[in-house]
């Protein structure tokens, strides 16, 4: 499907991508922890052009009451995009895409959080995309993971996330918007890197089974890179060895 305005190639002759990255190289990442006053925990991520805030409230009393669970906290997640985060102004409010992303992002954390420590409570994760350029769900999860830690929510491990994909027939790490639009495949992955437990995986496009295995390896490698950056950000905020 040739689309309007497609670039001729996404990988140059010297094997680099349009923004100069190697195939297995993530975009530059900047992470900051604890940047909001009202939230119980918060973090900010810049990954390429992506600019995303995450905040956590809780454990706190859960309303309406009939949602309370007698033996565990209810984890909720809301992924939202600001109206000015995308090329065409976005109408405020959830749409089908953000509802699905909110669901899978929540599910990526349910495995990690010791929710059973807080029966009847609510733990709310908010991801606000301020500027978007592909991979926002992964970047949002990476930031939300830090916001959870900043809020003091006990977790088995941090959750780290990154997308892999296929462009010009090659498996690559961390697609940009242009690579996502004109490439063949996109596969966001989230995991707890120390435990090798994958808690989010979606994929669309085209992979042979060999490519899938290669991509999965690369995603795991990418998550581990993000994991180190997350730990650094926490150290910057909280110190430690």
């Amino acid at each position, binding site marked *: 499907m040739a689309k309007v305005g497609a670039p001729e190639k996404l990988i140059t002759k010297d094997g680099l991508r349009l923004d100069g990255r190697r195939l297995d190289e993530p975009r530059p990442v900047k992470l900051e922890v604890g940047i909001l006053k009202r939230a119980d925990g918060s973090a900010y991520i810049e990954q390429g052009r992506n600019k995303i805030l995450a905040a956590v409230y809780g454990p706190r009393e859960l309303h309406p009451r009939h949602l309370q669970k007698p033996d565990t906290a209810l984890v909720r997640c809301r992924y939202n995009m600001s109206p000015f985060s995308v090329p065409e102004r976005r109408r405020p409010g959830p749409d089908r*895409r953000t509802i699905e992303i909110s669901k899978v992002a929540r599910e990526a954390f349910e495995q990690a959080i010791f929710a059973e420590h807080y029966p009847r409570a609510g733990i709310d994760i908010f991801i606000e995309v301020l500027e978007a350029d592909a991979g926002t769900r992964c970047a949002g999860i990476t930031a939300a993971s830090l916001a959870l830690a900043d809020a003091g929510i006990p977790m088995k491990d941090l959750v780290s996330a990154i997308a892999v994909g296929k462009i010009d027939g090659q498996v690559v790490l961390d697609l940009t918007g242009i690579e996502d639009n004109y490439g063949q495949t996109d596969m966001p992955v989230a995991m707890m890197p120390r435990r*090798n437990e994958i808690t989010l*995986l979606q994929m669309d496009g*085209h992979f042979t089974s060999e490519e*899938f295995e290669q991509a999965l390896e690369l995603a795991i490698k990418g998550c581990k890179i993000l994991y180190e950056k997350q730990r650094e950000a926490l150290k910057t905020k909280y110190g430690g060895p």
Partner: protein
Amino acid sequence: MADIIAEIKKDYIYSLAEKDMRVDGRSLDQYRPISLETGKMGRAQGSAIVKIGNTQVIVGTKLEIGEPFPDTPNEGVLTVNAELVPLASPTFEPGPPDENAIELARVVDRGIRESDAIKLDNLCLIEGEKVWVTFVDIHVIDHDGNLIDASALGAISALLNTRLPATKVEGKEIVIEEGETVPLPVVQKPVACTFAKINGKLMLDPSLDEEHIMETRVTVTTDADGNIRAMQKGIAGYLTKEELIKAVQIARERSQELRKFL
């Protein structure tokens, strides 16, 4: 009481899983009995009634002339929608699609779209102005587990069953040629295979009892050539790299059985 019964059921399914067995006697990578009827819905342009075990899904297609998206001016539009009507399960509520219905529709949609199942460029009538819009409406009527595979099978089957009116373009006017129809240009047969992970085992085509206690869920949509076109991990829990690779492998094999119904 409900809790105790649920606990007993869970223990039973878990203990069977250790022996690679399932409550209804199936092997881990076996589907329940499947049936598929097409063309029964007389107001739809295409339709399919799918049963997988007791799960029943009706899919109907409708075609309308509409506008293309600005970035694909010479392609038709595909819209997939799922309704979990409260007739199908005591847990379904009336109202607009919730996150489960939306996820179901989007997983089915991606399977069709990403496998290029429909030649969307053949559905352009006047570039940038008029194209065929294909609505695929998934109507779940009995929910006994694994709605994704039943819906995906129903959707591609309904599309294969779809005929659209023959048209001529005269200037800027679309003239419908009365009574003449042509098949929808469907060129690929994506099929979804969904696994529940229970006690560490991957079980293909989970029943509702299995879904109630599964640790996590993963769907692999493949095309007829065995390529992967879409995947979705669902609900909480996790999968390892090895489990994912295994799921892909089983899906590539077992999807051929489903494809025989098409």
